[in-house]
Structure formats: C-alpha cells, structure tokens
C-alpha cells in the first residue's frame, strides 16, 4: 500500500521569499511517479510539478522545484519568489503500478503575505 504524509498543516511566507513544503511517502514499488498539486480557493486542482522516480535529476518548473531524495522517500517542493497567487492548498501525491490511482497526502495550506 502507498502512503503519503504531509506533516505540516499550514505555512506562511512573505511575498518574494522562498518556502519549502515537505512530503514523505512510502511504497514498495520501483516504478512510480510523484506529484505536487495546488488547489486554490476556487478549488480547481492544478498540477504544479511531476517527478519520475527513475530520474535522479530534480524536476523544475519555473519558480517551482523539488528536492527528491529517493532513499529517504522524501519529496519536498520549493517555491521561489513567492507570489500572492501561490496562496492555496498544496497536495503531494504518488502514483504507482497498474491501478494508476493517485494517493494524496492531507495537504498543506500555504498563505503568501503581501
């Protein structure tokens, strides 16, 4: 069974600063994918970034990057130059095997202060 743990329920960051959101996961599979999704108050779930477990290089998407530590089963999201529009709930998720479902963490509420 897969599990995804986000232990911080909420965080706050000043606009233009950098913030890191933590996530750990557990799986017995060798082939899996990890995701960060963002859910703003509008509730639309938006893909932020994706990491393939077989790739050693950390994924980056503009201001968003991950620190993927496979041995430690850790997958943190770094948001640089935080913007007000980054205010949202962020979910870490994993996907393995043929069942293809996403397993989500409980999410973290990020507030960006002006």
């Amino acid at each position, binding site marked *: 069974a897969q599990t995804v743990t986000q232990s911080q329920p909420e965080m706050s960051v000043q606009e233009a600063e950098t913030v890191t959101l933590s996530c750990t996961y557990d799986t017995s599979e060798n082939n899996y*994918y990890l995701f960060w999704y963002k859910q703003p108050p509008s*509730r639309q779930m938006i893909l932020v970034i*994706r990491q393939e477990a077989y790739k050693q290089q950390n994924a980056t998407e503009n201001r968003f990057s991950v620190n993927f530590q496979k041995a430690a089963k850790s997958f943190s999201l770094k948001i640089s130059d935080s913007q007000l529009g980054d205010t949202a709930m962020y979910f870490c998720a994993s996907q393995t095997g043929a069942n293809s479902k*996403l397993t989500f963490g409980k999410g973290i509420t990020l507030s960006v202060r002006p």
Partner: protein
Amino acid sequence: EAGVTQSPTHLIKTRGQQATLRCSPISGHTSVYWYQQALGLGLQFLLWYDEGEERNRGNFPPRFSGRQFPNYSSELNVNALELEDSALYLCASSLGLVLRDTQYFGPGTRLTVL
C-alpha cells in the same frame, strides 16, 4: 484546448435520494478518474474508467457506481445518499493506461446531502 469539465457545479440532495455527477475529459484522453474530497478525510480515490471499462475501484460501498460512455465522458452515481456523502467530487482525466500519464482535474461538483 478545453480542460476537464464537470456538471453540475453544486448539487443539493436529501438523505436517501440518488445523485448523478457528470464529467467530460480533455479531448484525446480515454481515462477518467473520480475522487472524493470530504472535510477531514482528504482526497480519496473512488473509481477509474478507461475505454468504457471499470479498471479500479477504491474502498467505497457499492452504492457508489459509474460508467464511461463511448465518447469517454463519465457519470458517477451515488444511490441512497447519506449525510457523510457530502463532499467535493473531483474528476480527472489522462491519456490512457500508461502509468506515466498525468491526471488533469476538473473544477469539481460540490454535493450537499441534507
């Protein structure tokens, strides 16, 4: 390109009634996933359809059912509604059975059971 669409946006039912939620995937996507986001329970996988077949099912009672139509749109039916079925129901679509396909989400249907 149009994203995943869901209807209705809001649905209010009373206990014991049936609810039908609809989802249209991104053009070219054959897989549709349903997730339930209930307060305090996080995001939980409900059902996965691909090419008209149910591929996987989450840990939900049989009164949660669905189907996928030839045009790949999907319907989620919830029979004998209970108060705890009140939640945001999210639909996602992806290209198909390949593991590497990212799931893209719709805006959700908010179901309220009175």
